[in-house]
């Protein structure tokens, strides 16, 4: 899903294109990681806690190579201890549908679902959620690639203007409808209140969520 293809420059031999499309970004990253990260992980484990007497791994110290459950797939990735989920998603897994607005938990552009609950991915360490289920905007489409009912309703209501806040608005709306399939307009407003829209399209988004709820979005 959303595999990153190494796009060949136009006019290059088809053979190269075939080779390129066989390499997913995931695999590409895996290869890069395999070469260097293990060694550095070892320094993390054994080099930490200088001055402390205990030998060997310290209880609770994190390993850098992790398996993340993102959009229903298991993805192996090398995660730094100081890395936010937004960084991992965008720059390591190629899931750039998640936007970074403020990087300070103040806008909601980076909203993703963790175990179906809305979080600002800019303000959570990837290591904090590595055992949990992450869903991004790329992961909500239907089995045949069709738009999620919330996305469809946003299109019909002309909800986005510039569209930068839209992935976050969609994710907050999806989270709401999962726990409350028939919200009131006020409940929608409350649920989407953590998503800033610099274009001020708030009412259009609310119309969209109400439309999606009426269409039974929660069942998907």
């Amino acid at each position, binding site marked *: 899903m959303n595999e990153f293809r190494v796009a060949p420059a136009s006019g290059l031999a088809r053979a190269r294109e075939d080779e390129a499309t066989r390499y997913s970004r995931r695999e590409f990253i895996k290869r890069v990681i395999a070469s260097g990260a293990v060694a550095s992980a070892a320094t993390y484990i054994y080099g930490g806690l200088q001055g402390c007497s205990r030998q060997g791994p310290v209880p609770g110290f994190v390993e850098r190579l992790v398996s993340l459950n993102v959009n229903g797939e298991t993805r192996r990735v090398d995660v730094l201890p100081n890395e936010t989920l937004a960084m991992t998603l965008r720059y390591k897994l190629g899931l750039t549908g998640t936007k970074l607005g403020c990087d300070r938990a103040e806008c909601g552009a980076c909203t993703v679902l963790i175990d179906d609950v809305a*979080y600002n991915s800019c303000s959570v360490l990837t290591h904090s959620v590595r055992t949990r289920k992450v869903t991004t905007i790329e992961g909500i489409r239907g089995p045949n690639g069709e738009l999620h009912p919330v996305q469809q309703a946003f299109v019909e209501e002309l909800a986005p203007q510039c569209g930068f806040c839209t992935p976050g608005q969609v994710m907050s709306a999806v989270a709401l409808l999962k726990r409350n399939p028939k919200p009131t307009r006020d409940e929608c407003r409350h649920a989407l209140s953590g998503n800033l829209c610099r274009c001020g399209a708030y009412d259009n988004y609310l119309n969209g969520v109400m439309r999606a709820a009426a269409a039974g979005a929660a069942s998907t």
Partner: protein
Amino acid sequence: MSRDMMPHFELYQPDTVENAIDLAKRIGEGAWIMAGGQDSLDWFKDRAKRPRAVIEITGIQGLSGIRETAEGLEIGALTTLTEIENSALVREKYSLLSTAAGRVASPQIRNIGTLGGNLCQDARCWYYRSGVNCYRAGGNSCYADTPQGLNREHCLFGASRCVAVSPSDMGTASVALDAQMVIRGPDGERVVPAEEFFIGPATDIRRMTVLKPAEILTAVRYPKTWAGAKFYFEKVADRNTWDFALVSVASALRLEGGTIREARVVCGGVECVPRRLKAVEQLLVGSPQSDEVGRLAGTTAVRGATTLNFNHFKVPLMENLVRRAIRDA
């Protein structure tokens, strides 16, 4: 604002309180305890605090959840603000807490931000947060309390070199409910009343609470004396989402036949600690719950307020909020 990586730190995820305390003790000064990270990560991103090791405590079992006990209510420090906001038990008997929790930050922040982190969070003075070397940061000046200083958000009471205010909405509510803070550290467990838990700059300008290094807040206990009382919580902020209280008020009243028998009134955003208004409480006991008494309470509440250049508006704001907190509880 930068959107690059935070500076490096080691990350530990201990699974018991003992391990967390042990780690914090051994790492010493460079250790930083982190729960939901909603206060912590901003410090790291802005490079205003640079811990060597972060000890993330959210994996510790048994520190989250809301329980009714013989003495009242016990809420684990790792319980999220959303859980508190939505808990049927809290809403029924301690609605002051659920209302306050629902007014913190934004839905996404409440989904991860913890009660403990909210109570232990650091000051929000933007000079301090931007990493300048002010008194609170260990330096020797205050940038907010100067003729040009932007101090609209700053304090009316208890200034002592630093003029920052208490940012914690749960702190304001917890002091009003006579909460008891359960703390575990290298020397075992101690229980501190919420009112003594928060400390002002005159006590220690570098800290907002009595917590010592390697101490962890494990739970907060709310005595049943206030269960089902009359409550009022109101917070005035520039925006209803994200912004901190300019002034907030929390009240708890017990009435008998129209007469107030017991009262707690606390304001946030006016002092470095949640400000308990004892003079107001005394005046309320034995009085009826009326607008007139509320008005008197408001006047009493602001007595002694010392304004800075840009925060005069907080005086009538506080006065009115206290009045409503009595009249409309």
